[in-house]
């Protein structure tokens, strides 16, 4: 793991106001990305605010792989400059996240990848991506039986046989 790397502001090309960020993934890949793109992430925005307060810019260490990080960056690049209601901290949260066709194609990946993306999106506080992933995972289990859901989600049945047979004891909700 690298120690905190200082990025000198002078290395940033003066293209408009968009500065560069250095993101470091858990597999130690250094990815440079425009700050503008990542502003959808509340986590990154807060980090950047922190930089401004201390006038020091650091690499941001992220606890997931570059593969996942690239996927998230792809998402953020696609919606660069777009207003998405779910990501607006001031707007009332929508009842359900809207279906976006591009997201559906983008998230047409296996369940492990989906879980990794949603975890990353949660960490980075990108609500719109969390919503779209949640919908994609829900689509996989919708209408399935409990047994099929266990299979799909990779969950083990840890109820005791007694609990299984008397749902009242386990289902108090």
């Amino acid at each position: 793991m690298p120690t905190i790397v200082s990025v000198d502001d002078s290395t940033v090309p003066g293209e408009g106001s968009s500065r560069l960020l250095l993101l470091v993934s858990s597999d130690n890949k250094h990815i440079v990305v425009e700050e503008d793109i990542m502003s959808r992430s509340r986590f990154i925005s807060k980090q950047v605010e922190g930089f401004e307060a201390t006038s020091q810019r650091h690499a941001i260490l992220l606890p997931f792989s570059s593969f996942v990080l690239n996927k998230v960056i792809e998402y953020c690049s696609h919606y660069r400059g777009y207003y998405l209601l779910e990501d607006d901290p001031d707007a009332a949260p929508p009842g359900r996240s809207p279906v976006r066709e591009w997201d559906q194609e983008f998230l047409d990946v296996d369940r492990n990848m989906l879980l990794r993306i949603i975890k990353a999106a949660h960490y980075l506080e990108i609500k719109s991506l969390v919503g779209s992933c949640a919908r994609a995972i829900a689509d996989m289990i919708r209408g399935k039986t409990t047994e099929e859901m266990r299979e799909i989600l990779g969950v083990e049945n840890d109820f005791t046989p007694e609990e299984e047979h008397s749902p009242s004891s386990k289902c108090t909700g």
Partner: protein
Amino acid sequence: MAPSALFSIPNETILAILGTLNGKDILACSATCRHLHSLVAESVSLQYAIELFACGMFDGARGPHTLSVRDRLNRLQRYSLAWEQLLWTGLLELPHFVGCRKPLTASGDVLVVQRVGGGEPKDQVSLHVQRIPSELRAVDEHRSTNTPPNPMKNAYDVLLDSSQQLMINNRFRMNSTHRTNELYVSSLLTGDAHPLASPLIFMCQTGRVDDICGDLLLEMIPGSFPQAGKFVLLNWKTGIVQADYPGDESSFARRIFVDEHHVLCMSERDPLCLRVDSLVPAGTVQPASYEFLLPEFLQKGAAVRCMIPYACTLETTPAPHGCFYPDPADRLIVVEFHATALRRQFTIDVLARTLTGYIAAHPASPGQSAVVVPWDAWGTRGARMTVLADSAMHRTVSGSRQATLTRLDGPHRHTVLTVLDYCPRRVARAIARGTAIVLHGATVGVEHTGAGFGPLRTELACIVTEIPFPFEEEDGLDRRAWICENGVLFLVSDPFWKKIVDAWAHTI
């Protein structure tokens, strides 16, 4: 995938995933493992989603004045528990019913009884309308007496339209050549006469109106061989006969379900017949009307394009052969009763069919008015419940709930009221929580139905609750229970329903 992969993501995110599912899927998911189960049990918003699902509701409420999700959940749970456990807050005494004749009709939360005498002229007939109050639903008690301006003895058809809050009172007058019907329409809320029809006078061959739905009245005119009978549909707001189409000599329409385009008639004969007609364009019947013999209808899985409106559920006494009930989840619930006198046993077949959802998604191709729904798309399959009862004294149905008054024999003879709820969504939830189905005095067995119905699906069981009848046993008196939206109404009368001796209502 390692078992823990799902749980490597934060609970908050798991809740976001579950939040996009419907109540049934949430319940299925909560049964997969302990962790998911406790997450679901502790989440107010997921419990609310389950409750909404069970009620067949969507909550579109947004705004500063709506209750919090927790408060809405509490109210919904109170309402369902009130039904599931008959935990009702009020026992309402109805002394003004005493001395009245038997109830004419009940619908929604309104009951109409008839009183003869007590006015001028001496045999003056009046109608008492009683609305059962509900604290939970903020419905006030309302009572009114309607004395017809032109009293005609023993000529009452009272029909309630709970969707429009109207009472339709049909009376007829006979002279040597024909019968004239007078239709009085009044508001159930204010008692005022409806401006469009008071009274509407029309010629009617049988002198009876068989059913009402929305603005349409159904009159069934039985044929006499070789002449065929016919159905007449009259729009009482316009006075126009909307449909006049032939039935056959043996058919007898009992129920109609109508929306602005379609009429669904259930007629009682052997075998049971379901008939769906189109009223397109408004006011005319399409030349091709469809008629299905029920067994064939079910086997083929074919349905014509039809809509079954929820609002037109009227209280009826179950027919010996069967009844159709529309349900909020766009299903047509078919309930069949078979009585076997010898074993004092009756069988209820509950068949829930999804018609409108499929038809909405797969509309008819141009030029065709019928949609054939493939068997696999029909959703929930049938189940059969066999109910052994000592003696069912009275049975009444409202929506997807059925109330039966049963007298139990034994050292302490007493009467119990059993409420069967076979609404598939509520049952699915009750089963997932282990709260469905308990019985005393009657046995409910659930068995697979014969060929063609496929495997039993759990949601076709029923929720059974019962309460003791709140009156002392007095031999020689009739006891009846009527079920309405807000509770169950009990009436005790003399043996021939000449008058009501006592009346109470259990209310939510």
